[in-house]
């Protein structure tokens, strides 16, 4: 019984929370509202999955939100200036991957702990985003071919939700069914054991950080398409929320390990919590207080993985 509670306890608590909101908050169960929650958390979940992949390699990426903003600015600026939407999307992804690679090389070659390296990268990305935009948002009527990436619908489900599902499925498949994912997990669990087993641990750590950057780039493209705008601070609020989703996810399914199903349930739970509180008329700041408690509680359960990621080089 105890292992079952450890594995599924948080997920069951999320189900209980769902039932509480379903009973107490009007319109919570409306299909439009539920789809809205899923749509709202999609960028958070994608960023969270990226953060989780870096964490699985025992590295922290605290730059993803600022990198996401910079990538959004790059994408938005190019679309706004009439360049091909595909070029703009590629630029957004490229910014994410480039920063991921930079983080990876700084951590593995210069031996700077990822906690510090990615904070520095966040500052660089933030500065560059303001440099490109002069602090002014890029807004416009952009080609439908581009905005459909984030606003379209397939089978009545918003494109953002499909993207989230696709990214989660791809990450899960890669981790569980491929040699690359298997090795990433081994490296994160015991880097010395992985090295002695012949794994290219430095390259795997770079891979984890590049994947986090790529997720930030993809989230940036989708957000820009969805909102038809981009600004230097547009993803700033996602930092804490996405980390909270991953932390909450580490308390379920594979307790103590960053994992993809947990991150998804974590993101949906946080989205549901915010939505339910709004429907119940709670002040906006209550969400932040809840988020803080979620992070503290989750980290208390999963402290070892975080300590390893934060302080090992």
């Amino acid at each position, binding site marked *: 019984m105890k292992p079952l509670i450890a594995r599924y306890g948080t997920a069951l608590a999320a189900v209980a929370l769902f039932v509480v909101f379903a009973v107490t908050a009007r319109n919570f169960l409306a299909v439009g509202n539920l789809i809205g929650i899923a749509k709202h958390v999609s960028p958070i979940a994608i960023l969270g999955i990226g953060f989780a992949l870096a964490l699985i390699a025992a590295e922290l990426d605290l730059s993803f939100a600022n990198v996401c903003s910079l990538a959004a600015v790059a994408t938005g600026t190019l679309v706004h200036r009439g360049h091909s939407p595909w070029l703009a999307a590629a630029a957004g992804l490229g910014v994410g991957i480039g920063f991921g690679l930079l983080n990876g090389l700084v951590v593995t070659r210069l031996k700077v702990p990822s906690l510090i390296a990615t904070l520095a990268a966040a500052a660089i990305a933030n500065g560059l985003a303001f440099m490109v935009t002069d602090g002014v948002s890029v807004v416009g009527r952009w080609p439908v071919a581009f905005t459909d990436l984030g606003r379209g619908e397939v089978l009545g489900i918003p494109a953002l939700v499909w993207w989230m599902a696709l990214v989660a499925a791809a990450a899960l498949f890669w981790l569980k069914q491929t*040699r*690359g994912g*298997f090795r990433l997990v081994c490296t994160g669990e015991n880097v010395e*054991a992985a*090295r*002695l*087993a*012949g*794994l290219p641990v430095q390259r795997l750590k770079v891979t984890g950080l590049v994947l986090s950057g790529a997720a930030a780039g993809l989230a940036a493209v989708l957000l820009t398409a969805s909102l038809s705008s981009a600004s230097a601070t547009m993803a700033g609020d996602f930092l804490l929320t996405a980390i909270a989703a991953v932390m909450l996810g580490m308390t379920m399914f594979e307790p103590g390990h960053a994992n993809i199903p947990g991150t998804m349930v974590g993101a949906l739970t946080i989205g549901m919590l915010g939505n339910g509180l709004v429907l119940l008329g709670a002040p906006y700041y209550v969400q932040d207080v809840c988020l803080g408690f979620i992070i503290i509680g989750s980290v208390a359960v999963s402290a070892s993985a975080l300590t390893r990621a934060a302080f090992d080089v």
Partner: protein
Amino acid sequence: MALVAPLLELRGIGKSYGPVRALHGIDLAIGAREVIGLCGDNGAGKSTLIRILSGAERPSEGQLLAAGRPIEIRSPANALARGIATTYQDLALAARLPIVQNIFMGAELIRGPSLLGLLDHRRMRAEAATLLDRFGLGGIDLHRPVSDLSGGQRQAVAIARALRAKARVVIMDEPTAALGVAESRQVLDLIRRLRADGVTVLLVSHDMEDVMAVTTRVVILKKGHKAGEIETAGLSAARLGEMIMSGVVA
């Protein structure tokens, strides 16, 4: 000691860390189906020597030969590829990962095109079960994390990993150091089975009784030098202890 076509041969192997010389001109021939004890006091150079053989360190001088041909062991992966596997004192296992993942770490079995790198979970489970069966752990749940296992079982997992890599030489660094009497006995049985299966074992141990129980000869290091080597047959644990302390092998 007449050895025909040594599996592995060390000629004048030395290692320096800056001004500090940890090993001086070590010569050693390692033959097939041997269990060789590598003994010495703390600081004798045992760990440095096994780190060189396992690819974790490069020698500063000297030559390594495999079947008479000069080789370089550039990395742990390179050592494994040459059939040399090492089980470390701390076992180098990822404690929170399942048994099967630990056994196949770095040597995953793949199905379909190699480029896709799709894991063959079924074959890995089957091979892991077969390997562990040799050590009496055939029925164990392969998804159990290594942290749930006893010391002897962990040692079996570490050895299974070495065997999975088709190792012809297994270096075991203090395999019984953290074990109780019964578990130590299991590990010594594992070593005997390895020898019976044609695997050569290089056993590093401070436990003279263990060394006497399973080795065919003993190599003694003293302050980075090879003090000598001697056949185990006819030797007593007490006499071996004296040789290690004095550095005089006779």
